[in-house]
């Protein structure tokens, strides 16, 4: 190690310069550590520059723990290096010592006793963490995954309330259920009219129902087998119907919103997978960053975790696709092509996610989708017919064995699979807890 080697360190509370023997030579305290660190993060090195005046002659080697500062430091020294991981570890360990030796340096006139150091550090780390949380919560992909989850939930709600509404209104006008498939049209009729005899032609026309159907509806309304409905029941039923209508309005705006935000955060994934499927994958992975770090085989079966674990445990067939099944190409393909298609699509989706995350410009790159389309047509032509008759698997388990024992035995010969859950009764200890009794007690005590 050269005598003229110095460590130029950015610590939480200030800038420190150590010599090659790890002695503290200079320390400049940050007045507001949070602000200073933010400045450093944006490559604003004005505060650092003042500390550089410490060097009257140029040091031979300057080592720093702040990699983005290296270019800046080159001004004052020929050789600037990133700190080695061993040294970094030493600095972490000696940080306490560094801080405690600060008061001996008269030049900077700072006095820090151990308690103040601890308090200052805590103060800084609380603020810094809050800032990190704020940054993380502002990321657009988190909002997309929330909106796609909201979309799924709204679908569920519309479905349940809608079915209830059909069932209930069916007591009054049972024939309407078979005549109208669309839940929103049904709901708007219920919320507008209520009593079946009041249904008018004009309104049905505005709902874009074909003419011949309108006539049937009005005709059946007059000779319906349904019973009468009281005003009270009807008003509750109508408020359910308005809920369905407003929910489907929200659903529509959500869909548009997802489409628009996918354009912004992940246009390539959107191009390959459609907006909703892409957004669902992001939601399932947790974030775009996480999705980009997944392998294509993981992306292929994302959303089929249950089937995957069944495979691992019992040796059943592995899943071909998870969420990707919702992709129109896979969805409409015959069964024997789906695995191949899912593999091709997920391979390109993995690349697309990485392009979107790390690519400089957020323009869609058509190369991916053209290649994918080529591959899709290739698969569709090559495997027009199922290659061999699909063997029917015997799903009945051999008697005397537990599920999957046979495969498990073959695959993992010699591994110990026995579990002695029930044989654990003789474990030592002076408290023998009966789980249920104990748990019940706790729940009781919490409710009080």
């Amino acid at each position, binding site marked *: 190690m050269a005598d003229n080697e110095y460590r130029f360190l950015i610590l*939480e509370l200030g800038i420190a310069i150590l010599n090659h023997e790890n002695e503290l030579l200079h320390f400049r305290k940050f007045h507001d550590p949070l602000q200073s660190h933010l400045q450093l993060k944006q490559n604003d090195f004005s505060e650092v520059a003042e500390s550089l005046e410490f060097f009257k002659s140029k040091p031979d080697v300057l080592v720093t723990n702040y990699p983005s500062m290296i270019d800046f430091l080159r001004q004052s020294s020929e050789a600037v290096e990133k700190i080695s*991981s061993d040294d*970094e*570890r030493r600095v*972490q*360990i000696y*940080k*306490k010592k560094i*801080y405690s030796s600060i008061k001996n340096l008269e030049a900077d006139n700072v006095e820090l006793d151990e308690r103040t*150091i*601890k*308090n200052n*550090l*805590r103060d*800084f*780390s*609380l603020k*810094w*963490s*809050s800032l*990190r*949380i704020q940054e*993380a*919560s502002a990321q657009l992909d988190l909002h997309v995954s929330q909106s796609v989850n909201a979309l799924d939930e709204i679908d569920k709600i519309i479905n349940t309330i809608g079915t209830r509404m059909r069932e209930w209104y069916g007591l009054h006008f049972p024939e309407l259920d078979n005549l109208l498939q669309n839940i929103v049209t049904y709901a708007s009729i219920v919320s507008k009219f209520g009593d079946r005899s009041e249904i008018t032609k004009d309104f049905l026309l505005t709902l874009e129902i074909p003419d011949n159907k309108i006539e049937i509806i009005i005709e059946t309304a007059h000779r319906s087998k349904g019973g009468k409905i009281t005003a009270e029941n009807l008003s509750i039923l109508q408020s359910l119907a308005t809920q369905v209508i407003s929910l489907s309005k929200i659903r529509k705006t959500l869909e548009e919103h997802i489409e628009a935000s996918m354009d912004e955060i992940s246009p390539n994934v959107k191009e390959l997978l459609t907006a909703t499927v892409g957004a669902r994958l992001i939601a399932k992975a947790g974030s775009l960053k996480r999705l980009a770090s997944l392998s294509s085989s993981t992306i292929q079966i994302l959303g089929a975790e249950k089937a995957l*674990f069944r495979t*691992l*445990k019992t040796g059943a067939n592995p899943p071909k696709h998870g969420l990707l099944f919702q992709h129109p190409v896979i969805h409409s393909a015959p069964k024997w092509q789906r695995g191949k298609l899912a593999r091709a699509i997920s391979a390109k989706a993995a690349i697309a996610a990485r392009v979107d995350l790390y690519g400089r410009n957020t323009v869609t790159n058509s190369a991916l989708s053209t290649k994918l389309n080529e591959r899709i047509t290739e698969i569709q032509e090559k495997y027009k017919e199922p290659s061999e008759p699909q063997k029917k698997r015997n799903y009945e388990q051999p008697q005397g064995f537990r599920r999957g024992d046979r495969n498990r035995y073959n695959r*993992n010969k010699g*591994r*110990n*699979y*026995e*579990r*002695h859950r029930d044989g*654990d009764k003789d*474990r*030592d*200890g*002076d*408290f023998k*807890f009966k*789980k249920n009794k*104990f*748990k019940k*007690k*706790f729940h*009781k*005590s*919490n409710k*009080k």
Partner: protein
Amino acid sequence: MNHLSVYRKFDNGSFVMLIDNTKERYLATQNLDLQKSVYGEKIIEIEDLEYRIWEPFRSKLAAAILRNLEENPIKESSSVLYLGASTGTTVSHVSDIVGNKGVIFAVEPSARVAREFLENVASRRKNIIPILMDARNYLQYYSYYGLVDVVYSDIAQPDQTDIAINNCKSYLKGGGHLVIIIKTRSIDVLMDPKVVTKNEARKLEKNNFEILQVVDLEPFDKDHSLIHAKYLG
């Protein structure tokens, strides 16, 4: 839970076992953050002291103590590096135990859970220094200084033991203690939990640790075990 009284004190009263009149036993720590319950646990006053019930079904350290952890390495005024703080359930009790003289460096990578942790625990207790980072980047911890007495690691990752070992090598005193919760299902879903634990213990031994005790956390946590080890430096 009717009338509670102190049944036994551990480590000079850094935490206690309470008993009620049906002879049911509860762990509790003396509350540092008065009148505030962190995760819905009950607060009790006994002889002018305020205790928080320490639920073994929520906190794995409490579970281990009830399953006969021979020595709890976390004592009054010890400094702890806590990996995997999560929402701060166990951290709050550890903070009670170490008291105002101790310090906890609580590492948690996920912003979502750290939000609750900061709000309910870290910002209210003066002995906690939160570090919002992945424990894998152990060299980049900010706000960290010195060596600690204890490393407590509760992270459900396939490489959880390696992460703990790396952290120990950088921050644990020679002769300091490591408490690591092994979630066996995160390491291998298929392998027998006992085998997994044994493998991880062996890994620790190879890295200059002395295994003091292995505690199976059943019935409180399924397929979890706690390894208490001493770092030989």
